[in-house]
């Protein structure tokens, strides 16, 4: 019987992308498949014991200027509300976040059929989150500048 990870890896390769397959837990049949598209590395987690269950994830680095923001987690929660199927997790002391979608399509074949749609949804959610985080940073910087100018006053 063909392994779930092999079916998914063969699909990604057939779509033109190199795939790196790592078995994370042999006894549980958990594997991670890494591939790159549009400059971004994505991972797919497969489960041999549960061929109905997949996680597709990618990491986004938060730009330096926005790392000290105290409201990044709140921004991620707001964006997550707009993309309910995508889950965000902050990592590396706020230096990056993971955008992940958990899929239960029914079979490896069904998963590959919807594969690029899932990639697109995760990518859209992640890009939106980065835009909002940077936008809030710039808005806050502009507001701080305005407040400072008022505080300094003029004689």
């Amino acid at each position, binding site marked *: 019987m063909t392994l779930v990870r092999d079916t998914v890896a063969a699909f990604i390769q057939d779509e033109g*992308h190199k795939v790196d397959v790592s078995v994370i837990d042999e006894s549980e049949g958990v594997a991670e498949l890494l591939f790159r598209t*549009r400059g971004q590395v994505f991972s797919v987690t497969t489960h041999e014991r549960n061929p109905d269950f997949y996680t597709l994830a990618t990491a986004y680095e938060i730009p330096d200027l926005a790392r000290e923001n105290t409201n990044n987690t709140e921004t991620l929660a707001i964006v997550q509300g707009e993309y309910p199927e995508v889950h965000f997790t902050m990592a590396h002391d706020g230096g990056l976040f993971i955008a992940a979608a958990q899929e239960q399509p029914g079979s490896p074949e069904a998963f590959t059929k919807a594969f690029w749609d899932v990639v697109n949804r995760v990518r859209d959610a992640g890009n939106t989150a980065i835009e909002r985080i940077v936008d809030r940073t710039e808005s806050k910087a502009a507001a701080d500048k305005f407040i400072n100018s008022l505080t300094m006053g003029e004689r």
Partner: protein
Amino acid sequence: MNPDDVGDYMLPLEEALDDEGLLFTRDDDDDALRIAFKSEGDRYFIISYRDDPSFVMLGSGWALPAEIDVDDAVDVANEFNVRKKFVKTAVWEDQRDVLFTVELCVSSADEVRPHVGRLLDVLRETAAEFFDDLREDDDDDD
């Protein structure tokens, strides 16, 4: 420039595709050097001619769906050719094909390497926008 002087000038482009995590195949003959590859399942090519190594073309070809009117496709292509950066959109009316290409003049393919990701994005987005526009036209006609 004599191609023999510069060796395999498509190698930097292969390296760029490699950087992008893409698989590719080479198909060279006496006239041209060709790279074929896919990204997210869509097919692309890069071509350069042995007698004109400073010319490099990246592109993708698509069939026009049966429900699309060729005249509408030509109109959208003309509008894109006026408005779009980099990409040339050409409709082969007899074959009902459309070709999106980026044509560059470079002194070495190395110059293209840092921009391959962006150029692929432009090709991908132009094709998507082209078919979206035509489907909108089609819906408006119904």
